[in-house]
């Protein structure tokens, strides 16, 4: 019960006045000094018989009448829910986007998030639509209630919420989740027989960390009529430090580079002294201090003495949040790249092609280039190789094997240096009558019409490297009767004939140069273009050989690639750690948790590491202005359920009872009058 004018209730205090006066009168006024009160006990205050109330009923009636008078003036009312109004209520559709990314593992954020979800559920009224969607890198619908049924629906949603016991290890792609939900809410219309939604709201319950990816919302035209309300938790972030590996852009081009790691400390971090730890497979723990001031990051190379100790896990220590302090590390093994030169050159003949070829490739800690030379006249079986370089005519058994190898996927570079190679060329290209003709020219030739879009020449696409005018060709050849199709001309000589050609016989690649790189042919071997060109030709092989074994949670990993695509016998992925079960996969594997995994196939086994997304370490809250800049129609971030529930109040009926109180008061006054009249007729005076 409430009162419109509650101050009038103070009038009821008037009741106390006669009672207080009565009590005051009863108190004796005379004082009697006495020697000692040691024999006296406190007795009931003596009552003056003359002042004793005689007509208690009258007193009661008068008091009640006064009380009711005060009650009437205070205008009492009771609010009751109007069921008819509840049915007329506007429907709303609330979607809760619950962040389950790795950063939510901090402290009690997850419990807070669940509590906020419960609060959001409390806003719902009968008939509302409710969706609960958890997101990290991906979005998963946990619960969907098309028409809210009160406690029954709440139980159902709570059961789904409880199933999500704790957050995952994924990154946080809030932008993607918002777009997904926004589109879903826009596209879904209410059923014809249903009341349309008056309000559509997305409630985001998240730590809104800086590492959240919001790119998807940028440039997205947000649908009208869908509000976004942000319920941020963990605003009191106490800073965090993270670790990630720094990858070189061209791993094969860097020689002897030790793996390096970026240790970052957030701007609100507490300390600047962190400990960088490495755990080896032998159970040894190595550590070193790293000084990273708050708001800065520092790249630390794995110390040389650590690299030799088969480190399997790195860690940092010294920040408040523990969830991202481990970094699982799978060291790359040195991979052999076999290059077979088919020709008659001597390895140390500076006039030959082999000499420059062997010198072009540099050993690194990831790649071991092995250049082998065989004669074109050899009758031995063709060795396996990642690149075949053909510098001379190849005799038939070998040429045939080479042709088949190329067709089955190998890469070959043919340097046309003599007309005798025409047969080989015709054989591999599947063309008859190919003729190689030496161009007799007193002047040097230059390259033109370079097809820089082609993957082989893409490395020179940058204007800084695309100048080929310093590269002079003294001798070159012309190929005649080439097939019209299936051959790309990558570059031509300024006189017209093709200089570099690319063909794709079968699954393989065959590159043809009509002028060699020896000093007798051109300046190519001595130019700055030579080594990039060779690496560019080898790039698909190198990429495969130097592929990273570092992944992040949620990545779809092509595990078959580790075994060169040999997935026929099935691949088993075994996570490290106790109690982890091996998983059988065909080609792809999506790791659910960070750790070291071992992929095992038929005759091969490869270890790879899975870590948290580095962005999850950036736990500082996003500034709210950023969301407004993205054009999201924001509800106030601190919107409370009471605000949302305000319309419900309006639907309640206010029932006032002051008329009844007035009637009761009049009745009491009448009764009192009758009783008093009776009393006055009696001889005894009425004392109240």
């Amino acid at each position, binding site marked *: 019960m409430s009162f419109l004018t509650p101050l009038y209730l103070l009038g009821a205090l008037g009741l106390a006045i006669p009672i207080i006066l009565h009590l005051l009168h009863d108190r004796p006024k005379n004082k009697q*000094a006495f020697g*000692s009160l040691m024999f006296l006990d406190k007795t009931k205050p003596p009552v003056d018989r003359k002042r004793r109330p005689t007509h208690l009923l009258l007193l009661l009636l008068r008091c009640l009448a006064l009380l009711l008078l005060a009650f009437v003036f205070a205008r009492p009312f009771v609010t009751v829910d109007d069921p008819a109004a509840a049915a007329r209520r506007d429907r709303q559709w609330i979607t809760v986007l619950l962040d389950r990314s790795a950063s939510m593992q901090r402290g009690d954020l997850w419990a807070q998030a669940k509590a906020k979800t419960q609060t959001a559920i409390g806003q719902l009224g009968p008939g509302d639509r409710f969706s609960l969607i958890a997101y990290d890198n991906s979005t998963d619908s946990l619960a969907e209630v098309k028409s809210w049924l009160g406690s029954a629906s709440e139980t159902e949603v709570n059961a789904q919420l409880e199933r999500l016991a704790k957050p995952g290890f994924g990154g946080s792609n809030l932008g993607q989740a918002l777009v997904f939900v926004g589109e879903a809410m826009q596209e879904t219309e209410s059923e014809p027989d249903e009341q349309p939604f008056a309000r559509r709201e997305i409630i985001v319950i998240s730590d809104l960390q800086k590492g959240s990816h919001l790119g998807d919302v940028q440039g997205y035209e947000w649908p009208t009529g869908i509000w976004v309300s942000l319920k941020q938790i963990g605003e009191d972030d106490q800073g965090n430090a993270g670790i990630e590996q720094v990858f070189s852009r061209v791993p094969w081009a860097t020689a002897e580079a030790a793996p390096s790691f970026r240790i970052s400390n957030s701007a609100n971090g507490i300390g600047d002294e962190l400990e960088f730890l490495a755990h080896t497979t032998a159970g040894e723990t190595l550590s070193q201090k790293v000084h990273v001031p708050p708001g800065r990051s520092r790249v630390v190379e794995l110390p040389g003495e650590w690299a030799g100790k088969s480190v399997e896990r790195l860690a940092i220590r010294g920040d408040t949040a523990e969830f991202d302090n481990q970094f699982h590390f799978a060291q790359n093994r040195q991979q052999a790249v076999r290059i077979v030169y088919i020709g008659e050159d001597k390895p140390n003949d500076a006039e030959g092609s082999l000499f420059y070829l062997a010198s072009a490739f540099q050993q690194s800690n990831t790649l071991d280039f092995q250049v082998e030379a065989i004669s074109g006249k050899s009758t031995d079986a063709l060795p396996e190789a990642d690149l075949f370089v053909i510098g001379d005519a190849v005799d038939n058994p070998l040429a045939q094997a080479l042709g088949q190898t190329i067709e089955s996927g190998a890469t070959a570079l043919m340097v046309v240096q003599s007309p005798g190679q025409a047969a080989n060329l015709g054989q591999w290209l599947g063309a008859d009558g190919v003729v190689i003709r030496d161009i007799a020219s007193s002047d040097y030739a230059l390259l033109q019409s370079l097809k820089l879009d082609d993957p082989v020449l893409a490395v020179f696409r940058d204007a800084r490297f695309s100048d080929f005018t310093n590269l002079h060709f003294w001798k070159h050849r012309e190929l005649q009767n080439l097939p019209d199709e299936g051959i790309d001309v990558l570059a031509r000589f300024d006189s017209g004939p093709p200089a570099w050609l690319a063909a794709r016989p079968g699954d393989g690649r065959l590159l043809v140069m009509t002028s060699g790189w020896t000093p007798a042919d051109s300046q190519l071997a001595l130019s700055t273009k030579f080594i990039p060109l060779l690496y560019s030709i080898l790039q698909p092989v190198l990429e495969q050989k130097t592929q990273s074994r570092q992944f992040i949670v949620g990545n779809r990993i092509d595990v078959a690639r580790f075994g060169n695509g040999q997935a026929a016998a099935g691949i088993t992925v075994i996570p490290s750690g106790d109690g982890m079960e091996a998983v059988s996969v065909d080609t792809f594997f999506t790791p659910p948790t960070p750790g070291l995994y071992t992929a095992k196939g038929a005759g091969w086994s490869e270890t790879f590491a899975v870590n948290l997304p580095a962005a999850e370490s950036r736990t500082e809250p996003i500034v709210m202005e950023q969301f407004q800049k993205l054009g999201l129609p924001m509800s106030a971030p601190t919107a409370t359920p009471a605000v949302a529930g305000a319309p419900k109040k309006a639907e309640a009926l206010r029932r006032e009872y002051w008329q009844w109180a007035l009637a009761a008061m009049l009745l009491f006054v009448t009764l009192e009058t009758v009783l008093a009249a009776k009393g006055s007729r009696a001889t005894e005076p009425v004392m109240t």
Partner: protein
Amino acid sequence: MEIRSLSLRARAVVEGFMSGLHRSPRTGFSTEFTEYRQYSPGDDVRFLDWKVMARTDREFIKKFEDETNLRCTFMVDFSKSMEFGGDDAGVKKSDYGRTFAASLAWFLTQQRDAVGLATFDRDVREFIPPRYRQDQLKTILGRLETQPAGNATDLCQALEKLASLVGKRGMIVLVSDFLSPLDEMERCLSLFTAAGHDVRAVQVLHPREVDFSFEDAAIFEDMESGQNLILDPGMARESYQQKYNAHNAALDAIFSAQGIPGFRVTTAEPLERVLQRFLEERPARAVVRQRRSNARNAA
């Protein structure tokens, strides 16, 4: 009690009591013979009664009553509770008690006895050691005439102090209303009786304290603590009297245990009669003690 001066009051009371002798509780060697005792080896041969020995051929020792003067110390309660009375409620307990002490002091001085005074409330206020001097009575009366300004009574604490102040054995007359807790009373009184003092207690009460004869309800104020209690006397009387009687019974038991003669007087009683009663008690008491002493010696 119309006479304002305490000395005059005392003198008026004492008149007529000039005769009568009280004896010291100590047996000594004075001129007054008390009894014979058979000689036993070790007794001083000086006290042998040669005449009896010649007549009966037996050795007897003569014993004499010591006739030294009495040393009497009045201990008068000056606490606030003694101020009850006055105006229409009769004589104040303090006036009554002081007059009693003054009268007795006058009387004793007349007999050339040494008289001293101690006044107390919570603590000992004044102490005049017993002395026989020309101006001793004047000093005592002067002190008794000062108005009591004490607080609460702590009889026991005061008695403990006095026990250390009073030196030689003598008579102690304790004048108080004894309206205080009796928990420690016996122990404190025993300090005097054990030291051989002849202790007498005079409990001065107002008639209203005896019968609680108030009529109207009033706020009763404790004169010592200032505590207030709203009371209907009619309702409280029965309980009061029960407790009062129990207190007095307990007090009597303590006196009896310590061999202390207790005089309970109300301010309504004529002082002469009380004084007479008091003085009559004295020789009898002395005789009892004398007998006890003789019995010990005979053994």
